[in-house]
């Protein structure tokens, strides 16, 4: 009863014309900046924050939140069409989304992402309104040992989702972990592998690595042939998924929604882990896993849903604990405080109309996103009809501006160049880049939590199996490893046998 009443209260706040207007503005702006590589939601929110002083607090928060999930969506658009992952959660979408676009299914990929995001967003809103306080207690149960096991689980997922030889995937993960170490060590204050360059002393930004590794190196690959090459060969399929395609996409969307809303609660990497996790699950349970990486629609629908529901529930630590779990949430927290609201356990009771209004506006924002984006898809795809001889110049310039804008540092562009070379060469050597990137994202957290767990346990490694949550996570790791490795080893053996017979 409470739940219905609360949501009703929320909607009565959110559907005022003013709030719908600001929700629309936020979502639209978010989508547009999300499409631009490197220009993330945080910078946009920061820029608009002063403009919200004159607004009602709830309108301001609705608009800023809209920028966040709008940008998530816009990020998937450029990941699908141009292989430009602007956010870590969009990396996985480049795998099958870009392949779908190459096959002429760009519109389908984008509409599946939109539909999946909407369903997941609806689910996330329901979870947020029904279980927010409960899920917050889960977030507080995660200590260093639990996080370490979660990160290990993420890395195992990277092995599952890779399709090449096991040793190569493992090597790429480790290389990614090593690159993730670059920067100042939190524990000792020592700078590692920075060569005294101040711009990298806080580590290399994700966007620098991703845009170089994926975006620019893809341009290099496309320019090889020296002939006109349409990025999107003519669209052969329309916007709307067929009934059969929808039937195929719906289960991944639902699984992604559930997984995402659970992982999103965890501060630190939850949203990214959700999209990676969803992809691994879909690939693992697919009848024919070999379709993945070649334009499987489950590989778009699942992760896109997962990251959207995770984006919704990532508000939980902020709203219920007053702890911002990432840069975007820190920005939301600033916005609230500038409007005289202190996020935390008291928000629900002291300003219920604000809490529930924001929750309801997220569902509304997702609805607006779908309504806004389905027509926009046509325009995005049209933009790709620009001849590649001009398009690559646009992409390259935007990548450079985006990389620069992250910390206003030209040095980062040189690093972008290095990662472009790395990406280009590794693709030639048939090494997959996604495991590298996942290692890069998780590396710092993996090390940090391992060291803290060992410090706190006095060097006793059994801490990972004596704590129930971390023990169950490790059990999942073991299970996954068995499931993942058996077929690979078997295949390897078969190959060896075939070779010997030949």
């Amino acid at each position, binding site marked *: 009863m409470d739940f219905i009443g609360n949501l009703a209260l929320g909607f009565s706040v959110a559907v005022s014309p003013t709030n719908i207007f600001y929700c629309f503005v936020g979502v639209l702006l978010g989508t547009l900046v999300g499409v631009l590589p490197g*220009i993330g939601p945080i910078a946009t929110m920061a820029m608009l924050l002063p403009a919200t002083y004159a607004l009602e607090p709830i309108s301001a928060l609705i608009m800023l939140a809209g920028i966040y999930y709008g940008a998530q969506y816009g990020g998937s658009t450029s990941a699908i069409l141009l292989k430009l992952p602007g956010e870590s959660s969009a990396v996985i979408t480049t795998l099958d989304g870009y392949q779908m676009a190459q096959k002429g299914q760009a519109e389908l990929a984008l509409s599946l992402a939109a539909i999946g995001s909407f369903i997941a967003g609806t689910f996330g809103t329901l979870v947020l309104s029904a279980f927010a306080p409960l899920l917050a207690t889960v977030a507080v149960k995660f200590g260093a040992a639990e996080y370490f096991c979660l990160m290990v689980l993420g890395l195992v997922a990277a092995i599952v989702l890779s399709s090449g030889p096991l040793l190569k995937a493992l090597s790429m993960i480790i290389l990614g972990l090593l690159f993730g170490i670059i920067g100042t060590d939190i524990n000792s204050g020592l700078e590692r592998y920075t060569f005294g360059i101040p711009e990298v002393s806080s580590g290399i930004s994700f966007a620098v690595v991703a845009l170089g590794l994926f975006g620019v190196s893809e341009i290099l690959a496309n320019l090889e042939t020296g002939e006109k090459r349409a990025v999107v060969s003519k669209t052969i399929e329309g916007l709307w998924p067929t009934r059969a395609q929808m039937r195929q996409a719906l289960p991944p969307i639902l699984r992604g929604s559930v997984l995402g809303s659970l992982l999103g609660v965890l501060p630190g990497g939850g949203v990214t882990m959700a999209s990676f996790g969803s992809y691994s699950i879909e690939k693992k349970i697919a009848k024919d896993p070999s379709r993945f990486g070649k334009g499987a629609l489950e590989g778009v629908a699942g992760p896109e849903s997962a990251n959207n529901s995770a984006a919704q529930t990532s508000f939980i630590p902020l709203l219920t604990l007053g702890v911002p779990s990432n840069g975007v949430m820190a920005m939301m927290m600033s916005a609230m405080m500038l409007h005289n609201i202190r996020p935390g356990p008291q928000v629900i009771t002291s300003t219920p109309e604000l809490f529930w209004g924001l929750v309801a506006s997220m569902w509304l924002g997702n609805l607006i996103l779908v309504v806004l984006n389905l027509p926009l898809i046509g325009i995005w795809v049209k933009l790709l009809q620009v001849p590649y001889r001009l398009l690559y110049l646009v992409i390259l310039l935007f990548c450079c501006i985006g990389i620069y804008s992250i910390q206003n540092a030209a040095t980062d562009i040189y690093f972008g160049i290095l990662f472009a070379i790395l990406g280009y060469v590794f693709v030639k050597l048939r090494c997959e880049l996604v495991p590298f990137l996942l290692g890069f994202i998780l590396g710092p957290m993996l090390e940090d939590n391992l060291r803290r767990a060992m410090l706190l346990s006095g060097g006793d490694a059994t801490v990972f199996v004596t704590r129930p949550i971390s023990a169950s996570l490790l059990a999942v790791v073991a299970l996954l490893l068995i499931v993942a490795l058996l077929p690979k080893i078997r295949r390897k053996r078969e190959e060896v046998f075939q070779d010997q017979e030949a």
Partner: protein
Amino acid sequence: MRRLATSPDFLAGLAFVLFGIGFFAGSLNYEYGSVQEMGPGYFPRVLSASLLVLGLLQVIGAMREAGHGGSMASRLYVRPLIFVLGGMAVFAATLETFGIVVAAMLLVLVAGVVAPDRRWPEVALAAVLLAAFSALVFVKGLGVYMPIWPEMP
């Protein structure tokens, strides 16, 4: 032997070995610590050593397989590499002193050398339009922090 030198598995393994050695050598500057109190060198040393071993396994594997077939790495195309990345470098070098308009035009002109089916008038027009677009949309519109015009002395 030629075949080995173009085997992607062999070269990838070699790359991993080299990266492993590089990171391992770097990690020797950092304190190793103990299991309880891991120093800044612990994690990188364990990882780079594992990478080294994995790389070696792949090199050996590739050498074994080189005898009977195995695939070849496709070739590197140097021209796009030089001009696309060169364009980025020029952009990075000129942006803060000469502003986005000049830097964007230079990037387009340099990277435009390797445009497929290149037409210079078109590239020049793109340079002008993109420079204007960047200044208006990114700097004026989105407030990205960069100069528009060359710095006046």
